[in-house]
């Protein structure tokens, strides 16, 4: 053999040993086989009760919360999707589109789409665009951005999979499944009250299923389905927690929660918006009974009445759910603790969020509605809400015998007024509130902080940015007082006149704050108005008023000119105050009213995806 050949052989051998020696170098297709990752999959989650429960916890996080907890618009633009609970109403609160609040936040949802009249099916779609602040989130309940569907998916995924979790006993799993059904019912109830009939999701859909048809159920069928979910949850859940369980489990859904939610859904269903001989507005959505029941049926009121009464009776029997009162408390303190405290038997469903520290919006941040020198003006209460509160003697201020003094308007008023609204002269931050023009709460007439002459006290109490940041405030999603008032309303409608139990249920709410009983012998209509006013006063800023106005088609409440109050202090002591009403800025619908506003529009982009979504009347 020639030396050259030897060299070649040696070289080939060397190369081979080099290549093959590289730690079992995989060749061909094996080369591309990935090393096993450490990724968490659905099987990881449902392999341990702890993980599975955490998954359900994520659904609780999507429950409706009515306050703005992160006012930093810049935070929002950096998100792939807006945070549902910080972006509702574009950093306004829902009360700013009722007669409760006038907002002054120029780029908030109220001004940009509601007061301006810009709201429509396109605005609803707009959250999908790459804009600065997603205006779609300025809707009051966006069909695709509120995370309701995300919560529903989580719950069905949980229900479908929890039984395969090896640890955790069956009873506990059953309870958690009950909570999951309950969360689905909450989400659907919220959507039902904003959209009417809805596409019904009954399991966690796959991507291929979602391409099929998913038509809206009729409004009645949607309500029936919600009731079924509630009943399912009631069967699986304890009626209430007591003692140590209450400390640990408060905030979780209970049988009582679900009985209450059922009442809320049925009351909306029985109300004239859907339950009437004619639709509120003609349109294909009405013809297909998605936004109208097709006729009036008194039995719908009975269902609501019965559902409410079941809970009242059971709550009173066990003592678990009641109108909250505490010995030694003032009337005002009782009211405050009723809406503010957790685990007090008044709260049927409480949702909680963390008030986050804004990274840049200081000091006039939006969270506190009234912080800083000017404030963002998101919590300016209208004089119309203030005037709804009666005198302590129970008489409305319009009653000449009420003793109301227009020159000292806040004297001897329902305690709930001062607990809800910061009024001139009330205790405030260790002094008295100076709501007069030039006062410390309202430096100038043009300032936004108390532009109506008032600002919000409810929930925020006396907190300032230092004390409220990074705290958790409970949102009274559903309170026992609503059940009492709902019973009174439904019973009055079903029976044609208020009976003794209906009176009792209203009076128990009034008596808590020291108001006397309603006058006996009211007609059906008088009693109905009395109950709606009671709800207005009791649940101000609790996202009740909008639905009351909508379900009773109270066009005059939508179109009336809202008022503020300019307060002028005399130049020198002893100070006297001069009160002068003024009209607040006109909202588009006050002069261009259409019943279409009762329900929201479905976003156009969803309709165009062609799965059978039919638009609500007036928004086509």
């Amino acid at each position, binding site marked *: 053999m020639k030396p050259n050949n030897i060299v070649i052989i040696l070289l080939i051998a*060397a190369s081979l040993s*080099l290549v093959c020696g590289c730690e079992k170098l995989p060749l061909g297709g094996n080369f591309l086989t990935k090393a096993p990752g450490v990724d968490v999959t659905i099987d990881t989650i449902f392999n341990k009760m702890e993980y599975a429960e955490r*998954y359900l916890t994520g659904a609780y996080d999507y429950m409706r919360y009515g306050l703005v907890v992160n006012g930093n618009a810049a935070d929002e633009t950096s998100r792939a999707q807006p945070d549902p609970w910080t972006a509702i109403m574009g950093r306004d609160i829902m009360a700013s589109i009722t007669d409760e609040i006038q907002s002054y936040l120029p780029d908030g949802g109220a001004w940009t789409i509601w007061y301006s009249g810009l709201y429509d099916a396109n605005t609803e779609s707009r959250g*999908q665009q790459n804009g*600065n602040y997603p205006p779609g989130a300025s809707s009051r309940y966006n069909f695709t951005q509120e995370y309701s569907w995300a919560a529903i998916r989580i719950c069905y995924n949980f229900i479908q999979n929890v039984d395969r979790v090896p640890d955790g006993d069956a009873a506990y799993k059953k309870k958690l499944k009950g909570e999951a059904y309950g969360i689905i019912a909450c989400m659907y109830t919220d959507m039902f009250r904003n959209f009417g009939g809805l596409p019904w999701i009954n399991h966690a859909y796959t991507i291929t299923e979602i391409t099929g048809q998913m038509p809206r159920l009729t409004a009645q069928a949607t309500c029936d389905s919600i009731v079924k979910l509630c009943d399912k949850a009631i069967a699986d859940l304890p009626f209430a927690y007591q003692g140590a369980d209450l400390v640990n489990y408060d905030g979780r859904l209970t049988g009582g929660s679900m009985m209450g939610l059922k009442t809320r859904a049925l009351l909306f269903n029985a109300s004239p918006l859907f339950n009437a001989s004619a639709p509120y507005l003609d349109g294909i959505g009405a013809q297909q009974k998605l936004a109208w029941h097709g006729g009036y049926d008194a039995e719908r009121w009975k269902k609501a009445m019965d559902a409410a009464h079941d809970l009242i009776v059971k709550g009173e029997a066990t003592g678990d759910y009641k109108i909250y009162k505490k010995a030694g408390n003032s009337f005002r303190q009782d009211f405050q603790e009723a809406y503010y405290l957790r685990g007090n038997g008044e709260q049927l469903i409480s949702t909680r969020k963390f008030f986050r520290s804004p990274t840049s919006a200081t000091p006039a941040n939006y969270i506190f509605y009234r912080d800083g020198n000017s404030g963002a003006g998101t919590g300016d209460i209208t004089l119309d809400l203030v005037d709804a509160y009666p005198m302590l003697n129970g008489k409305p201020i319009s009653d000449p015998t009420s003793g109301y003094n227009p020159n000292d308007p806040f004297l001897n008023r329902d305690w709930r007024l001062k607990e809800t609204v910061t009024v001139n002269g009330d205790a405030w931050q260790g002094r008295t509130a100076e709501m007069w023009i030039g006062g410390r709460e309202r430096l100038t007439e043009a300032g936004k902080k108390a532009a109506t002459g008032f600002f919000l006290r409810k929930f925020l109490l006396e907190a300032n940015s230092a004390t409220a940041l990074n705290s958790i405030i409970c949102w009274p999603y559903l309170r026992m007082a609503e059940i009492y008032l709902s019973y009174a309303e439904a019973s009055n409608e079903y029976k044609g006149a208020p009976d003794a139990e209906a009176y009792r249920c209203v009076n128990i709410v009034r008596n808590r704050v020291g108001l006397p009983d309603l006058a006996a012998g009211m007609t059906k209509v008088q009693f109905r108005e009395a109950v709606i006013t009671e709800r207005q006063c009791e649940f101000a800023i609790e996202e009740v008023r909008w639905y009351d106005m909508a379900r009773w088609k109270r066009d005059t409440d939508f179109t009336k000119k809202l008022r503020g109050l300019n307060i002028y202090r005399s130049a020198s002591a002893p100070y006297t105050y001069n009160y002068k009403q003024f009209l607040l800025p006109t909202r588009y619908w006050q002069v261009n009213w259409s019943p279409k506003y009762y329900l929201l529009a479905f976003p156009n982009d969803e309709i165009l995806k062609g799965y059978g979504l039919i638009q609500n009347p007036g928004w086509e």
Partner: protein
Amino acid sequence: MKINIQRYIYLFLLVLLVIYPGFAQKTMLTGTVNDKTGKPVVNALVTIKEQPGVKVFTDTEGKFSISGVKGQLVEVTTRDQRHKSQRIETDQIVMVMNQNDALIQVGYGMEQRQEDVTSAIGIVRAGELTKSSARNPANALYGQIPGLTVLENGGASWTANPNLFIRGIGTTQNTAILILVDGFERPVSTLSVDEIESIEVLKDAGALAMYGLRGANGVLSVTTKRGTGKGLSVNANYDRGMTKAFRLPEFLDAYGYAKAVNQARANDGLTDLYSQPELDRYQSGSSPYLYPNVDWKKASFRDFGHSDKLNLTLQQQANAFRYLLYLNFDNEAGILGPVKETGPKTTQFNNRTVNMRLNAEIDITKTTKFSVKLAGNLGEGTRPATGAEGDIFSDIYNTPAAAYPVKTYHGIWGGTQTYANNNPVAEIGGIGYTSEGRRMFMTDFVLGQNLDKVLKGLSVEAGLSYDNSFSYRDVRSNGYQYEQLTPILDPITMAVTDTIENTYGTNSATTFASSLTSYYHRATFFGNLKYSSSWGDNELKSILFVQQEEYKGDGQFTTYRRLLSAGNLHYGKAGKYFVDATLAWGGTDLLPAAERYGFFPAVSVGWKLGKEEWLIGSKILNDLKLRASWGMTGNDQVTQNISDNRWQGSTGYYFGANNTGATGNAEGRLASFPLSFETSYKSNIGVDAGIFNLLDLSLDVFYDKREGILTTTDGLYSQVLGVALPYSSTGVTSNKGFDLGLNLHQSFKDFSYHAGAQLSYAKNKIIEQNEVYRPYDYLKRTGKSIGQAFGLQAIGFFNDAADIVASPKQTYMAVSPGDIKYKDQNNDGFIDDYDQVQIGYATNTPEIYYSGTLGMEYKGFGFDCVFQGISNYTVYLNTPSIFIPLRSNTNISTFSNNSWTPATASMATLPRLSMTENLNNYRSNSVWLVDGSYLKLRTAEIYYNFPEQMLSRFKLKTAQLYVRGINLFSIDNIKVVDPESIGSSYPTMSSYNLGIKIGF
């Protein structure tokens, strides 16, 4: 993959042991090699195909003599990689080397003569590249290759990588082109210009199909130099450069700033911040501490930076051994002024790089070749210890002249709480440095065996490449104290009655932090089988190869593995008709098993009309070739692991009376469906022509269609699903255009000149991207270019309150006179996002990229210049201080001089000044979206080649002295800053270089 270094050493030693045996002699033949103009081609390699191992070189007169027999094939390869073969018919051989005899690297070790190429390939060679003094070779490519778009970015020259696009962009996803150095994927920025032999840009399917899943965005292939020529030749080059910021924005002085603030506040309905006496103090400079007027640019910059560049190349081609040894040293210093030097470390923007390369080829036997390439890049850069490189420039630009003095009368750094500790001068020289070190090592080993004994024309090659790169950061910084001086004014006279002196921050001790900023290694193994044959006037070349590649970076999802097998068949008939057929099969681990493999065929044909008898001898067309190609190629650059439905932690909730926090878990985005790589269908028709023996023309027209682009599905599936919607590979785009190259060159006895022009046009279109619903056609992105700018259309400024009331309501904020008035596109009475329309062109790539070159030489004196420009391009002027003034306490530049005021309402081109965010004005609209086109003089050079007679006395072969200017001027629309770098970053530089090149 672990590589055992010992094995390499073992292999290496074996190679060195080999002694190549001699070879028998045949009949002596003589010949001459000339170029087209009749000049001799010196030191070209002459071989005979049938006698591997026989090598001679042409002498100074282009003459050679070699032993051979009639009928054999003589092959000539020049030192600038031109190649030609010719059948021996007589004892006298005369060969003329033309420009299109150049060898083109078509990939995977295959070479073709330019004349035979059927696909669209652009090329630039060492000669043109070395006319740039750029640190990063990518910066030497402006306007050099038709179809290659090079866009400069801001940033110091050694950290900025220009954006490279081949024929624009063709996808809404990853547009990165594939960059190869000697056939393996590597960044071009770690090379230096002088080690590069040629850069090829592969543009059509005929050239790109071979790259399988990597070809769709185009390939830029860099070939490094190798040892050529007889005897040892040494080339050295020293280049000294002075650098100067190309353009710096001009900011208002303290007086101008204070006036502007008052104007802005008046516009916002606020009272003046500065009273007239205070304005006077700013203007007069009478109170430099309380009313300072600091030119922060002057205080922070020096006028010139400098660069030194030293290259040394040694090369030799002995009988059995060829090598090139290359050494490069670069030193660059930036333009910061008040820097602190601590020993060898400085807070100056400074960079030192050493590049080393050994390219060696050894004929182990007459049929066995081993080649090794070892290259290293070591570098270290320093800069002030600010967070990111651009931070110091934001500080300089954003600090108004009136903000505070550099130092107070206590000798403490100036500052205020508003501007915190951002004193630019303190940030440059007072807080320490950041030093960044880079190490990169590149190795290739290829063993080739000629298998003529098995089958004539057959050869095999196997090779391995391993690169390892890491960089680290070392930060040594300290805090500093700054003092805020606040004058107390008499409320009536505005005289200063007292001064409040507050200090903030502390002069803290130096802290040390080191971190690994990047790490990766890439290992590639390949093997190929080549077969070539010729019979009659037929010629066949073919290759079959396999390659597998692993890339591993630091962090999660940074490991990529790819497989590629491909075959190519090149057939030529009579030197006139050529056909190429390619089939590639590639796989990638970025995609799940079922979707990871793809086939990519391509076919290309060429017809050399210039060789047809009816054209030979034509006075007009001395050369003509038609080319056409069609084929497929892919792009697998998708995000990893989107084929899985992953789960993760999520926001928690608060249970219990005490609100105990509970953590959450959540389902992530659904698995992408369907998921695939992108497939590009490319068609290309080209013509190459030589006209009047003077002008070379090359024109390619192309149409690409890209399918399988990853898109979101928000426009497809209902949100009712309740979870982040999957991605889907269903996007489609198209891209069409042309590349035109013209070259004119003529030589006379003492005089020669050349002129060139290049024009590239590429217009893409989104055909399908599952676009979300948009209610008006003009809002739709589909049908428009990728990256098309959208914004509101300004129709002037509001004159007064009545104008505002009478106009459609602008919903972004309550507007004032002087705010931009927008056109209500949908006539709904509101100005909102639905009134956005397309404005100008895309903001990512220009549609038109062109250049012109001109050069001449007379008796050793020469001149060269390159102009380069872009057109059909839009930029968004949103840099704070430079374009958007005063907002959030920023600065104001001369750009804002023409802002609206009540007095100048009729002439204003910009909206009113405002101290606030102004959501109405500062958004994407036709005021800030402007034409980004420019024409720049990239290079201008004057040189002198010393005559040989003079050089021979110093034993030198060549010597050249040159003066060179880079980025000398720009004609553009933006004017206040470089149109290519509008942000607050290290400015782009002009540079003036003086250099000498010698060879012996």
